[in-house]
């Protein structure tokens, strides 16, 4: 026993009801919170397996939600980029109506394809359009000498193409009306084709072969355009429409892009419709057997699809939150049960109900946030994999990270509340007596 003189242990008579200052109360809460965090960490570490299972559940759920929204964001940004390359004033004359639902498929299926005759009618009889360009394309193998490149987009069009689409030439010249009339064996190549065949050689004037038997000499090179939907747009060659038809046949039909002047989209649409009806010899009471499409139609159907993805994401999110929440609730109920006597001791030593509540809420939030952080790291890893291995761009928005952490903390509070309340409302003597 220490014989050293120690200060008097007990205080003299005083008022029972202590006056605690505002600052004292804040300091007390800070102290208790710090203790609660330490206790929560100790509790998790000392029940590693139990905690790990719950944390994994939350992590996988959060990862699934993040991935769904990430894929969606990737798709819509790719789509928006694609659209912006076409321009909002462009109309597309096509056999199909864009954005139509699947039920109308039968209605459009038997329409005639847009032919070169329709194209000529549009070129000759319209006055408003700034540019008219037919588009038809196929995938083919392109070879130069002994080397092949597979899956090249071979496209047939005419001189209006550059104005209609915004593609830019880097070198050489584009197609002319004369090339079209003659069906000249000439082509313009994309930057990827140049890279594949012509390292250190001037491509202009060289001859390449597209598909089985189209030999054409290179007259121009496009400036690089980059990726869309993760797919290179530069792996392409452009040939005159007539040359394309001769080689690949004319069965597949055209899409004709018509660029309307700014602010006159509707008038242009009317004019194009009239010219087409005339070319098709449709009587006034006959329905159109072609469609004049605008991009916003496409955007509408795309948005519909995105909405479906969104709903899926939200549903998966709700289910995830429920499953994770039940996991949190379970681990917390076990923890409260296990520590009932400890709760009694803490209450006897002066812990208030709010102190106990805070302690268990802290534990719930910690489980949830650790799970959330795990989920975000898993999702980041997966995003990196998708980004490197697949053509789709995948990145994690920092807002998603913040949202994931905040969301899981909220989850912890919501599902931890009931077990924590049940702990806080225990009577001290009953908790102390608990075996």
């Amino acid at each position, binding site marked *: 026993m220490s014989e050293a003189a120690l200060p008097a242990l*007990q*205080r003299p*008579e005083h008022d029972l009801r202590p006056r605690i200052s505002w600052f004292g109360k804040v*300091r007390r809460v800070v*102290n208790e919170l710090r*203790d609660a965090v330490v206790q929560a960490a100790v509790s998790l570490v000392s029940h590693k397996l139990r905690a790990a299972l719950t944390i994994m559940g939350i992590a996988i759920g959060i990862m699934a939600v993040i991935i769904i929204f990430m894929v969606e964001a990737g798709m819509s940004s790719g789509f928006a980029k694609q659209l912006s390359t076409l321009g909002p004033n462009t109309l597309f004359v096509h056999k199909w109506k864009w954005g139509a639902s699947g039920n109308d498929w039968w209605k459009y299926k038997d329409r005639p394809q847009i032919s070169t005759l329709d194209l000529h009618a549009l070129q000759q009889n319209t006055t408003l359009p700034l540019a008219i360009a037919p588009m038809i394309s196929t995938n083919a193998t392109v070879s130069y000498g002994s080397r092949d490149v597979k899956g090249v987009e071979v496209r047939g069009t005419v001189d209006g193409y550059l104005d209609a689409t915004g593609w830019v030439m880097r070198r050489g010249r584009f197609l002319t009306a004369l090339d079209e009339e003659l069906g000249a064996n000439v082509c313009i190549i994309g930057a990827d084709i140049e890279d594949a065949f012509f390292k250190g050689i001037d491509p202009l004037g060289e001859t390449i072969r597209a598909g089985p038997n189209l030999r054409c000499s290179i007259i121009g090179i496009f400036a690089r355009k980059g990726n869309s939907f993760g797919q290179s747009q530069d792996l392409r060659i452009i040939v005159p429409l007539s040359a394309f038809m001769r080689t690949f046949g004319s069965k597949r039909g055209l899409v004709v892009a018509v660029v309307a002047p700014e602010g006159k989209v509707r008038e242009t649409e009317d004019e194009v419709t009239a010219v087409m009806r005339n070319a098709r010899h449709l009587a006034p009471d006959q329905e159109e057997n072609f469609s004049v499409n605008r991009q916003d139609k496409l955007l509408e159907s795309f948005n519909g699809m995105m909405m479906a993805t969104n709903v899926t994401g939200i549903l998966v999110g709700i289910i995830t939150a429920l499953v994770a929440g039940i996991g949190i609730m379970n681990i917390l109920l076990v923890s409260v049960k296990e520590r009932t006597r400890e709760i009694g001791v803490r209450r006897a030593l*002066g812990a208030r109900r709010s102190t106990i509540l805070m302690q268990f809420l802290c534990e719930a939030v910690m489980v949830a946030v650790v799970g959330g952080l795990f989920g975000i790291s898993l999702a980041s890893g997966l995003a990196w994999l998708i980004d490197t291995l697949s053509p789709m761009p995948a990145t994690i928005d920092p807002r998603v990270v913040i949202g994931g952490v905040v969301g899981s903390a909220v989850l912890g509070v919501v599902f931890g509340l009931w077990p924590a309340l049940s702990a806080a409302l225990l009577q001290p003597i009953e908790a102390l007596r608990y075996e």
Partner: protein
Amino acid sequence: MALIELDHIVKTYDLGLSKVPALRDIHFNIARGEFVAIVGQSGSGKSTLMNILGCLDTPSAGQYRLSGRDVSTLSDDELADVRNLEIGFVFQSFQLLPRASALENVELPLIYRGIGKKDRRERAIDAMRLVGLEDRMKHKPAELSGGQRQRVAIARALVTQPSLLLADEPTGNLDSKTGEEIVGLFLELHSRGNTIILVTHEPKLAARCPRAVRIVDGLVIADGPGRDVAIANAEALGAEALAQFLAAEKAQGARP
């Protein structure tokens, strides 16, 4: 003014079909600086009394005044503050937090008072020194002996400088030699001016306290110097019990 005033305390447990009286009419005072044993067989109501004294439970009737204040007027949070500031608990089964070190256990009540980390540590170390465990501060409860654990619990009860030290069968889980040491520690704490209430079923422990209150069936049936109450208790149990008690007391006196 007495520290503790028990004014005709009644406690009845309502078990649905029947009402069980645990305390029937408890009426006595305890002044500051007293060392009082509350003796009684199990079922006598002494644990109920101890819970009421410790502000863990409230009486069904009667008034309990601590430092002159009627405890029944206090809210749950105020009761928690009273337990924290006024009462130091020592339990039979020690009730230390298993995952915290001895020192952290002693610091615990100071956290609930909002005392800063540095100050908290200093006071906890002082309390550990007081119970002679300054070299065991980093140990977990599982690494300590029973006697050491009870010393840690006593340090935890003392660290807040409470008005009242409330010990419930503090030697119940200890062998007789270690129990003896703990009683010695209580006597020393008493000699330094602490108010101590010791709840026990062992008359020979009560005999060493300056004052003992004997409770039978929820009523105080003896209140006086510890040895007198203990002897009266033994007499009530019969001649054999008295002889046993005196022999034990003699052996104890001869030991040092």
